[in-house]
């Protein structure tokens, strides 16, 4: 074991012996001083998770959240100094964390918040100009072969629970007492400008966007969506994407 191996082991495990090389000017027990580092590492990582998952924390309370986060931190150190990437595995950890079982939508809420952080720092892209959009969409011959490239931050979430409404209620965008947590919900999470948007969508739109994000052509996406949702409204769907500035390109599908 190297010196820093010993140091790291002692940092992460309060039961592990202190590094042998530690010294204090007054001969005091170095454990008290070493505890500053132990505390800094763990608390700063728990704080980082609390920043990314504020509603998740509210749902279970700060004490429960921090105790749960502490267990995650002990198992999962960051692999990069870029802290906005830290904690991507936290929703999966919550899903398997039995003491959180009484809040069955907790892991999905964490997933929603994780997607918001990802969208926030994702690459930028400008929407296609209205003129170009009009030109491309009016060519009905090639339209079915066209792919719809959405903003790079666009991601979908689907839950058996009303996490989208619950999240909105915690932003004061909806009334909490009106939310039935046991309603399945879907949302598109995207950051077309500076602000991340959580856009509630219906199952048909979810299916359609799933196809588009999987690089299906407009024709194939429509066909697939109508199989399960025959009343799918393509014009309304494209209208939403255009209005929110989410279409960044309409390339022709490359034959595979």
């Amino acid at each position, binding site marked *: 074991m190297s010196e*820093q191996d010993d140091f790291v082991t002692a940092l992460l495990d309060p039961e592990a012996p202190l590094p042998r*090389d530690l010294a204090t000017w007054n001969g005091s027990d170095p454990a008290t001083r*070493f505890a*500053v580092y132990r505390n800094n*590492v763990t608390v700063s990582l728990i704080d980082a998770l609390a920043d990314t998952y504020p509603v998740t924390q509210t749902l279970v309370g700060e004490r429960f959240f921090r105790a749960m986060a502490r267990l995650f931190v002990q198992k999962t150190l960051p692999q990069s100094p870029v*802290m*906005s990437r830290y904690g991507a595995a936290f929703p999966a950890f919550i899903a398997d964390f039995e003491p959180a079982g009484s809040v069955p939508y907790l892991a999905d809420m964490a997933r929603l918040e994780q997607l918001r952080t990802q969208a926030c720092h994702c690459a930028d892209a400008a929407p296609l100009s209205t003129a170009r959009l009009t030109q491309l969409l009016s060519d009905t011959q090639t339209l079915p072969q066209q792919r719809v490239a959405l903003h790079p931050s666009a991601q979908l979430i689907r839950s058996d629970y009303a996490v989208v409404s619950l999240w909105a209620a915690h932003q004061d965008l909806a009334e909490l007492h009106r939310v039935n947590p046991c309603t399945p919900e879907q949302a598109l999470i995207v950051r077309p400008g*500076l602000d991340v948007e959580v856009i509630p969508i219906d199952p048909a739109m979810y299916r359609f966007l799933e196809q588009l994000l999987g690089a299906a052509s407009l024709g194939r996406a429509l066909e697939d969506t109508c199989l399960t949702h025959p009343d799918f409204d393509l014009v309304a769907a494209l209208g939403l994407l255009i209005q929110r500035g989410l279409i960044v390109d309409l390339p022709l599908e490359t034959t595979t």
Partner: protein
Amino acid sequence: MKTSITSESLSCGAPAQAAQAALAELPVRAGASLKPDHFQYILNHLPDIGFFEIHAENYLVDGGPFHHYLTRIRERYALSIHGVGLSIGGESPLDLQHLDRLADLIDRYAPAVFSEHLAWSGHAGFFLNDLLPLPYHRATLQRVCDHVDQVQNRLKRRLLLENPATYVEFSSSNITETDFIIEILQRTGCGLLLDINNVYVSSTNHIRDPRAYIDALPPGTVGQIHLAGFSQEQDGAGAPLLIDSHDAPVAAAVWDLYDYALCRFGPVPTLIERDGNIPPFEVLQAEVRLADERLNSDALRGRRS
């Protein structure tokens, strides 16, 4: 075992001041940490501030509001970039991917200064999110110098290395911190980011004389100064243990030590560093003004003498 410094390099003469001028690419004024809470205020009010400083790692993202605001603020202000993740004091090899991303960030924003820490924060592929201490002896000196060389070669610029705040010492250390730093500066050509709060915190924690620490450092090597607040605890024997918390105003004793350092080093670009309990921008700006007043009065003193 102490490394020797020539008496010439210790004298406060004109050559030292010339070297200082060459180092100080930032305006010789006080600046502030740039915090997302203040982005909009800064663009709306364009406060009169010498420079802003960012933590590099917060901006190693592909897009979004951080780059949007930093781009606009950079158009109007001088910038220094402060890294917290290179782990220059680490046993592990430097993370080359991280170094590449830093190089891209530096190319994009052309900061006047890039600085890092005499500390380690990563080990065996993991990042520990704290600045951890290292013993001072020949082997660690070699390791740090190799890493500083590697960073400067990759970034094609001079690094400023920050003196640490520490809570423990090591029985294997046989070089003083100042001699350790001086030898790094001499061997690698990097400059010193002198964190006055760290000098005060470490000196209190290890019962050393903070002024002697300042006196031991050669003029002409300090490219930037950091000032910040600390919090206070006690060690196992009840002795004061100061924590470099960056979440409070600069303490009176640290201001005094800053004055002392300015007398020795002359006016140096100075950052008011704040990372926790972020106050409204005006409060931070008031602290920046206090530093500016000290910088100006010292400049006057320097001209009179």
